């Protein structure tokens, strides 16, 4: 390329000579200012070379022609050139420097703009999330108002009966025994209805607000459906209805809450019973590839098409449009719907007015329904770390010790605070976990000990007691019931790490090993993974992340992910690059090291660990 410019400059000057009337012309002096301009604008070196060559050729012409004063001609021609070309070169260099610094500023500016854009994007997504939450809250509060007005409406009916009939009984002494008994029965019946209603409301509130304790287990649906049918059969006999059992003679296992599913079945069956005056009720289970379908069919009044969705809403009662509607608060189906939906299933009705209705629900065959407590990998993190468990109630102490030991801890139990103090002084455990302190004086002593020796204290609390727990500030709380993840995250936050952790993301074993060797295996704990998905970042938060060049195309997405993720945005990030990739301008990169400067990697890494320890 450079050569090309050289010849180009040389050639471009030839027509110029001709146009100015040849070498002998006085116009030739115009050549110098133009030369100076060209040097200043273009690359000084190339043009300088070109013009020097040209000048020499130019000077030789008088000799070749046998000029009268060849030396004089040379001086005349070369001196002005030298006098102008040298400062021009300087100017050109200065201009170049200016240009470079301008480019740098622009680059920095681009960097800032990118970071800003990223922040704007983050903010935007936060705003979106907030407005979504806001809408959800609004919806929730509207639902709540609707629910409360529905509840109060439903409560008034039985209350009204109870109040009326008890008042009648109190005010009239001359009521005959038969009527008196009738009224007392009504009062009794209506208070039972009120009780059922209260229970149903509590149920729905519990499901709605996630307060329900789901007992998820392997459930035999055949068993559930059959026992529900068995419960309802005596009632169908009273009404003269028959029951058609289409349940296959085999077991259907799903994951779910047995009692809740039974509740759904009972609700569907009692609805069928309620709305069917003659004919039969059919029950069956059908199996497809993905799910199990259970149906309850009746030959009752049927449901208006426009009611088909409404009946699953709270306080909507089938038969509102029909005379002599059966009693019920209109809660049962909405509870059933919530239960089925919690099982990731679907519930719906198909119906023909006057001919009957069929209620269906599906349950996925192989779905883990509720967020199960994840099995915690007993990572090397806590392996062998020593925890003193102080609790005088033996069963609780055992539970705690087992929970901690499955997480890789070594535990020692102490049954009295005094014993605990002795062990703590002698063995210096990494942490002390205490059950609820009965004697707070001893507890105070433990606190002093923990302060002096730097042993974190953890308090086991019952959730309700959290308020009290906070009054006697400790390093953290483990609440009952024990949840491994919760224990782990609590301990992880407070327990001091022995070594800095470095996460190396690399496809190439050699590259990873090189990095590992450089930073010193013993100084830092290194984890090598092929990609981000193979590492649980929230559980094992590294101090520094090294992204290897071997990731090639995934480098961009990896870095983008790390920099847009709340939990990893602050972790120093080190990128290993080829020298040709030097110009890559990554957003929010703390530093990068180039393939050759492996020593630099180690330095930068230590810097990173140091700075991460500061924030």
């Amino acid at each position, binding site marked *: 390329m450079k050569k090309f410019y050289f010849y180009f400059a040389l050639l471009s000057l030839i027509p110029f000579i001709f146009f100015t009337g040849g070498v002998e012309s006085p116009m030739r002096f115009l050549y110098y200012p133009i030369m100076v301009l060209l040097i200043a604008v273009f690359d000084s070196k190339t043009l300088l070379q070109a013009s020097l060559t040209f000048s020499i050729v130019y000077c030789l012409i008088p000799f070749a022609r046998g000029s009268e004063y060849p030396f004089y001609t040379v001086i005349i021609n070369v001196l002005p050139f030298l006098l102008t070309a040298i400062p021009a070169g300087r100017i050109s260099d200065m201009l170049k420097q200016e240009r470079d610094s301008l480019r740098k500023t622009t680059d920095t500016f681009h960097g800032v703009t990118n970071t800003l854009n990223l922040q704007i994007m983050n903010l935007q997504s936060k705003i979106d999330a907030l407005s979504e939450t806001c809408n959800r809250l609004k919806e929730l509060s509207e639902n709540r108002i609707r629910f409360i*007005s529905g509840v109060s*409406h439903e409560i*008034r*009916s039985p*209350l*009204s*009966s*109870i*109040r*009326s*009939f008890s*008042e*009648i009984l109190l*005010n*009239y002494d001359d009521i005959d025994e038969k*009527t008196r008994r009738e009224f007392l029965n*009504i009062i009794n019946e*209506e208070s039972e209805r009120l009780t059922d209603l209260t229970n149903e409301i509590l149920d729905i509130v519990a499901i709605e607000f996630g307060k329900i304790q789901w007992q998820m287990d392997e459930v035999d649906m055949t068993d559930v459906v059959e026992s529900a049918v068995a419960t309802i059969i005596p009632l169908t006999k009273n009404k003269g209805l028959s029951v058609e059992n289409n349940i296959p003679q085999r077991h259907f296992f799903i994951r779910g809450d047995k009692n809740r599913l039974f509740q759904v079945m009972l609700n569907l069956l009692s609805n069928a019973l309620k709305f069917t005056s003659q004919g039969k009720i059919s029950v069956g289970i059908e199996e497809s590839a993905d799910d199990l379908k259970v149906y309850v069919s009746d030959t009752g009044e049927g449901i208006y098409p426009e009611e088909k969705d409404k009946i699953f809403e709270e306080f909507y009662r089938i038969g*509102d*449009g*029909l*005379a*002599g*509607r059966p009693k019920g608060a209109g809660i049962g189906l909405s509870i059933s719907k919530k239960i089925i939906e919690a099982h990731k299933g679907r519930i719906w009705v198909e119906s023909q007015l006057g001919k009957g209705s069929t209620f269906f629900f599906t349950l996925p065959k192989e779905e883990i329904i509720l967020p199960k407590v994840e099995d915690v990998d007993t990572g090397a993190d806590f392996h062998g770390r020593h925890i003193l468990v102080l609790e005088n109630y033996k069963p609780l102490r055992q539970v705690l010790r087992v929970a901690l030991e499955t997480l890789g801890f070594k535990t020692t139990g102490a049954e009295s605070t005094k014993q605990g103090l002795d062990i703590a002084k002698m063995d210096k455990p990494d942490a002390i976990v205490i059950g609820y302190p009965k004697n707070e004086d001893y507890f105070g002593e433990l606190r002093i000990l923990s302060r002096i020796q730097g042993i974190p204290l953890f308090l086991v609390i019952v959730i309700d007691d959290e308020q009290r727990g906070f009054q006697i500030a400790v390093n953290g709380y483990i609440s009952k019931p024990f949840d491994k993840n919760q224990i782990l995250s609590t301990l992880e936050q407070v327990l001091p790490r022995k070594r800095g952790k470095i996460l190396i993301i690399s496809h190439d074993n050699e590259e990873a090993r090189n990095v590992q060797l450089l930073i010193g295996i013993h100084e830092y704990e290194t984890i090598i993974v092929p990609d981000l998905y193979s590492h649980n970042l929230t559980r094992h938060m590294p101090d520094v992340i090294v992204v290897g060049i071997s990731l090639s195309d995934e480098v961009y997405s990896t870095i983008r992910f790390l920099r847009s993720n709340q939990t990893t945005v602050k972790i120093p990030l080190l990128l290993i690059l080829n020298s040709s990739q030097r110009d890559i301008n990554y957003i929010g990169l703390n530093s990068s090291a180039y393939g050759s400067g492996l020593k630099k990697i180690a330095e930068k890494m230590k810097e990173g660990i140091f700075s991460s320890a500061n924030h």
Partner: protein
Amino acid sequence: MDILIVDDEPYIQRSLSFVFRKEGFAVEIASNGEEALRKAKELKPKIIFLDLMIPKINGFDVCKAIKSDKEISGCYVIILTAKGQEVDKERGLQAGADEFITKPFSPMEIISRVRDVLQVK
């Protein structure tokens, strides 16, 4: 004919009709809007106790129909409802209702209201 009770709840029908009869009033019962209008025209009661959430024709429309029928517009309509909300009251007044009683009510209070109304007339 003194009183027409319009409500689809059997226990409301039972308790109200019991006290009214006990106090010596002539009582009829209607379980839905259609029946209510038919019986109102037929029996021309002095007072109608009207529930709002009734099948076929709702309470508001029954009230409107009664008040716009010259023959029976003079009868005293007491809206009896589980909803004590202001919006309902507004709608009830627009429909021409004379009075509101909110469930749960006291039968003895209702009796005294009935006596007042019938004496005034």
